[in-house]
């Protein structure tokens, strides 16, 4: 794809299909769980690469991927499917979960802790040895083919304990915990994802790793790999490093004026 940039020249947009760089044995565990028909629970802070990891694995295993972004009001029918009223007729429409089961795909429930308890009930029989999906409204039970896999992610740092997964759901899962990558890997990710120069990548990573050590009021979230990538993309596109970091790295982190000011001062030293 080609896009026009501000100066009127055209540049190729970055390669969004580049793949996930592993930090340890997570790819092997994923592939093995898939072969053994076990569901996966992915843990890790937001922006640490969970989605990218699942995408890469789906591609490597040659399976289609259905992703559902979960939220508090997600109902069982959002997952399984529902009858719609169309011009006075009622028509059944498969939900993403049903489609994934039918196609032997990988079904990825993103941020599953946000889901309501009654939707997790649907998940249970799919996640345990039965591997079946109960579609009450149609009066059918679908048995998932061997290629089907359920993957759920959640961000441990953020929800209240009350909303936690039921232990019975949890025990059925193989758990993979992703962290923010080490400095060395994160630098390689930046190079791979954005193509900026090594020195800038190194500075950005040092800044990111430093911010992750901060525990101050007004800084609820850490600077994620995602924000480092956005910053690098802006720099690559011609935005001066300092402005890019302010816009894409420190800006999104906090609204607290004191914290922003302190971050800015810190950033100057790292990017100078």
């Amino acid at each position, binding site marked *: 794809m080609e896009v026009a940039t501000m100066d009127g020249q055209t540049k190729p947009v970055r390669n969004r299909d580049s793949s996930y760089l592993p930090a340890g044995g997570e790819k092997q565990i994923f592939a093995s769980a898939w072969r053994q028909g076990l569901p996966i629970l992915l843990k890790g802070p937001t922006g640490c690469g969970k989605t990218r990891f699942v995408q890469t694995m789906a591609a490597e295993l040659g399976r289609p991927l259905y992703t559902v972004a979960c939220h508090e009001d997600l109902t069982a029918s959002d997952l399984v499917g529902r*009858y719609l009223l169309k011009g006075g007729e009622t028509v059944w429409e498969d939900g993403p979960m049903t489609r994934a089961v039918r196609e032997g795909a990988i079904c990825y429930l993103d941020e599953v802790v946000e889901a309501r308890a009654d939707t997790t009930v649907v998940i249970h029989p799919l996640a345990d040895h039965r591997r079946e999906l109960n579609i009450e409204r149609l009066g059918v039970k679908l048995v998932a083919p061997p290629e089907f896999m359920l993957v759920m992610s959640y961000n441990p740092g953020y929800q209240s304990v009350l909303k936690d997964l039921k232990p019975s759901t949890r025990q059925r899962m193989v758990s993979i915990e992703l962290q923010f990558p*080490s400095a060395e890997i994160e630098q390689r990710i930046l190079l791979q994802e954005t193509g900026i120069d090594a020195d800038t990548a190194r*500075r950005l990573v040092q800044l990111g790793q430093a911010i992750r*050590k901060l*525990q101050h009021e007004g800084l609820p979230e850490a600077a994620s790999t995602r924000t480092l990538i956005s910053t690098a993309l802006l720099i690559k596109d011609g935005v001066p490093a300092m402005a890019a970091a302010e816009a894409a790295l420190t800006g999104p982190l906090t609204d607290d004026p004191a914290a922003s000011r302190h971050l800015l001062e810190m950033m100057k*030293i790292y990017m100078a």
Partner: protein
Amino acid sequence: MTARKTLLNTQAVHTAVPSEYLFLASAIAGRRVSVHLSTGKDVRASADGQTIVLPDPRLNGGRWVWESVAAQAALIGADSLEAPIMRRLVGRGQSALRYVYLEVVRGAVLLADRMPSAFLALPEIRNAKARTRSADESLEWALGSRALPETPDYFGTVRPLGVLRRSVSENGWSALTKKQASGDFAQAKVPTLDDDDEGEESRLLKLLQNPLSRKNPVGDLLSKLLGAGMSKGRQQQDVEDAGGAEIPVGRIERALRRGVQSSAAAAPMDLPALEASAASQAVAYPEWDVHARQYRQNWAILEEVEAWRPDGARDMSAVLVAPPFELKRQLGSLGLDHEMHRRQPEGAEFDLSRLLECAIDRATGHAQGALDIYRSSRRTRRDLAVALALDISGSTGEKNTAGISVFDQQLQVGYQIGRTLDQLGDTVAIYGFHSWGRHLVRAVQLKTAEERWSARVGERFAQLEPVGYTRTGTAIRYGTRLLTQSMRLPNRLLILVSDGIAYDQDYESSYAQGDARKALEEARASGTAVVCLCVGGSQDAVALRAIFGSANLLMIDAAHQLSVNIRPVCRQALAAVSQRKLRRPAGAPYAG
């Protein structure tokens, strides 16, 4: 009385803080540290594990500032300031500087992933050989005589006494205070005890070689301070020799507190590079002068710090035990609010999406007489924010007859309440508080409101030690401010866990009580309920009632009695302010 003031006021402290380096310092150190300016003549930066003290910029032209911050933060981040090492460096100025050289270089390599590139590119760092791989190795090198490059000024230095000062307990201080007050101390004429002494021949070392009397509180204090650094033989001698050297108390006090008392800024300055205004890390609170019947504005300076003891974490397995289930039952019904429930069998309005589903079910022949088609509001939502303030002053370090300290019982109670409320879904912040006069009130962060409960909370508890004094009013104002300005939930509860003795420099008896009472009034006026919890039984019940009123006071003999009475006290306090809230909008009446 005046004598005591002299003792504690030897150096004035100001609040101006080079706040732009706050995050840099904390990020490299890997824990929260603050940055202060020295009022003294130091030309090198130093740190005590919680605070980095920069030289007065007028002395060195304000150059090399962030580099010094980075170097000192690296010392903290690389664990270079551990007590056993500091003890061996006391009085050895040259070795200390050599140690700094080796440790800053080691720290820069160790922490390279999060150090600024610009620091790593400094010639003294870039061209340095990595000679040592641990702090112990650096110490051996430093004490030896092998040649090393000169330690650049901007690396700063270490002040072993400044670091060790933190292990002096309240008892040490009050003994000193009493002696000073009774005029027992000879002032001056005796050698200086100060980190500034240079060389192996320092007067400090000589002083240590002189027997110090056990009866002399300073001797006591020194042996506590130097711990393993003093040989058995020497301590033996102490006991025998009752007439040991007297040390001028002002001097020792200054040395011990370096990094704290001397860590002041030199006034709200005419130096644009180092701004002195409202740094978010230190906030000035007012105090009520009951005698003059007016506020003293910007009086008590409170700073948020991270828990840290120079001797490392304690084993807390006997203290931080899981809360009893009964506590959860008791606290479960606090602070509930109305919440809309869908799919209810009865209620004030229809649940439209449910009705729609029913219509579809009907059309597809799945119809069953659905009853759950209403929305109703019920009192189930937890809208409670709780701030737990734990008194960690030296007086809580005293042990009861069973050998358990009030301090540990308070930590246990605080931990259990915090854990329980967090499990119930409430927003909980926990901090410890202590002070050394109005310029140095500290709120030690144990759990922030945003943070979810984790093992880290317990790790921070293990880094607490009972030192300093109690400025109750400031602790209450800080908690109120957290609840009203950061946590902002409709139901707010401040639980103060204290031995009840409000006592600090220039903060005692009627003045202290008057101010604490005033702080409570302010809290209630802003819609915050305050409860005081005393564990250990030995408190002055009359004084406590005078401050808190018997209704908001819970006194228990031991931590395990907590569950019995906590609910009625908290409920009553919450109910009292929720009535007020109707009359008066929330908002803190104080500056800050």
